[in-house]
């Protein structure tokens, strides 16, 4: 164990010396890696955040019915009887115009409501359906739209489903992009290590003659490739954080136009860990491929 640690300590030292000697080249490679990973990292963080937002919105699909100003007690009773007979409905709740006003006031619109001479909101019903099938919504909506007492029918929450699907699609695209650019990372590291191996043929051969084992020869390259990719991961982190910070005000403004309060966060610990592990592992993979190709046994 101690011997193993010492061997890795030595290999790390060697790798760091090589990094320093080729500081500029290493920096360039790390930058390329960082730039390549920044896009999927930012995209995934963005979509994850939006998805969690979408999930936090009530996604039980509902149909809202708004009653005409002229409708009365009789209309309400008649409709409630109809609802009871409707096999497609799971539950129904009545939202009076006063309750509706309270809800809006609680959501930060109190100022606006106060400026109005009277409550502009109608009475309404919120219908929850048994099925989540959009066709069922359309059927229910059509059925009640025809009613004389009903002013307006609104199918809620379908947009959330659509948004969800859209976000899932965006996320998939970002994952594919991460895979693609991850491959680029492997290739960049492969090439760096390949060039090193070619210029160090003599050292490798002499080391073999002096009794170096294959792991002894490999170790510094793994450290080098791993560290370079890790540095690339750090750069990607910095870029992604910067991009998210730049986008945050825009996103907040858009969210506000939908009446939502939403802010973009910087990458969280799990995402940063994932990003760094992803880049480091791919760096090690690229190194492994180069070693396998260019380090002949014995």
């Amino acid at each position, binding site marked *: 164990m101690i011997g193993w640690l*010492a061997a890795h300590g030595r290999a790390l030292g060697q790798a760091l010396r090589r990094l320093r000697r080729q500081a500029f080249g290493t920096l360039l490679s790390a930058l390329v890696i960082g730039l390549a990973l920044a896009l999927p990292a930012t995209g995934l963080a963005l979509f994850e955040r939006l998805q969690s937002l979408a999930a936090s919105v009530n996604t039980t699909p509902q149909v809202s019915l708004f009653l005409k100003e002229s409708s009365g007690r009789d209309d309400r009773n008649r409709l409630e009887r109809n609802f009871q007979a409707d096999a497609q409905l799971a539950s129904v709740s009545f939202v009076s115009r006063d309750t509706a006003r309270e809800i809006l006031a609680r959501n930060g619109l109190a100022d606006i409501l106060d400026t109005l001479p009277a409550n502009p909101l109608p009475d309404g019903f919120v219908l929850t359906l048994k099925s989540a099938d959009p066709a069922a919504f359309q059927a229910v909506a059509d059925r009640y739209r025809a009613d004389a007492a009903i002013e307006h029918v609104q199918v809620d929450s379908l947009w959330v489903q659509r948004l969800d699907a859209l976000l899932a699609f965006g996320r998939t695209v970002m994952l594919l992009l991460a895979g693609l650019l991850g491959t680029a990372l492997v290739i960049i590291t492969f090439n760096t290590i390949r060039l090193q191996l070619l210029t160090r043929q003599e050292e490798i051969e002499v080391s073999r003659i002096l009794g170096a084992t*294959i792991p002894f020869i490999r170790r510094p390259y793994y450290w080098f490739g791993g560290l370079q990719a890790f540095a690339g991961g750090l750069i990607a982190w910095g870029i992604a954080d910067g991009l998210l910070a730049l986008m945050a005000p825009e996103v907040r403004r858009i969210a506000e136009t939908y009446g939502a309060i939403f802010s973009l966060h910087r990458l969280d610990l799990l995402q940063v860990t994932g990003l760094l592990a992803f880049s480091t592992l791919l760096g090690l993979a690229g190194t492994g491929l180069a070693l396998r190709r260019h380090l002949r046994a014995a």
Partner: protein
Amino acid sequence: MIEFQEVSKRYPGGHLALAGVSFTIRHGELLLLSGHSGAGKSTLLKLIAAIERPTEGRVMMNGQDVGKLRADAIPYLRRKLGLILQDHRLLMDRSVFENLVLPLEIAGQSAREARKRAQAALERVGLKDRGGELPITLSGGEQQRVAIARAIVNRPAVLIADEPTAHLDPDYARDIAHLFQSFNDAGVTVIVSTHDPSLFCNARGRTLRLAQGVLTDEETS
């Protein structure tokens, strides 16, 4: 103890470099290997270090068949040997001292121990103050000494040198020969190939003569 049993070596391409060579090297011996260019001296020495493998026959070292060692066991065999190849193969992009430290690092010595031993080896070959220089700035004879120092830093029980006196003027060659004799005096088994066995004029020396891959003659001086 090193024993060659009917060893033949045919290189890919078909050239037969050694043909049925048998002999034994005892512990603590000084063995000279002579013969014309192309006789197979380098090949024979490389077989001991498992740099080449025999086509036929066996090379035994302390009861182990060197030719049948697994690839991952070979490094441990080589660490027990001090090797000076014909083209001494110093690393020209690093200092003399760093060249000497390399085999110690490979053997897993601590940095402090490595520095100590490298310095001692440098002194042993008479290059005490040259550690900081690049090998390229040294003369051929000095480079040869660095190669010798690199071979002895790990204090091997067996020292193998392939024509360490070639291309040196006679005085310098004699100095190098003396160096090997002094290692042998200290109990190290020494195997040296040379065009000129007369450089080594010690009493214990045994000379094997190779001609076109065949052992033709053995003499003890």
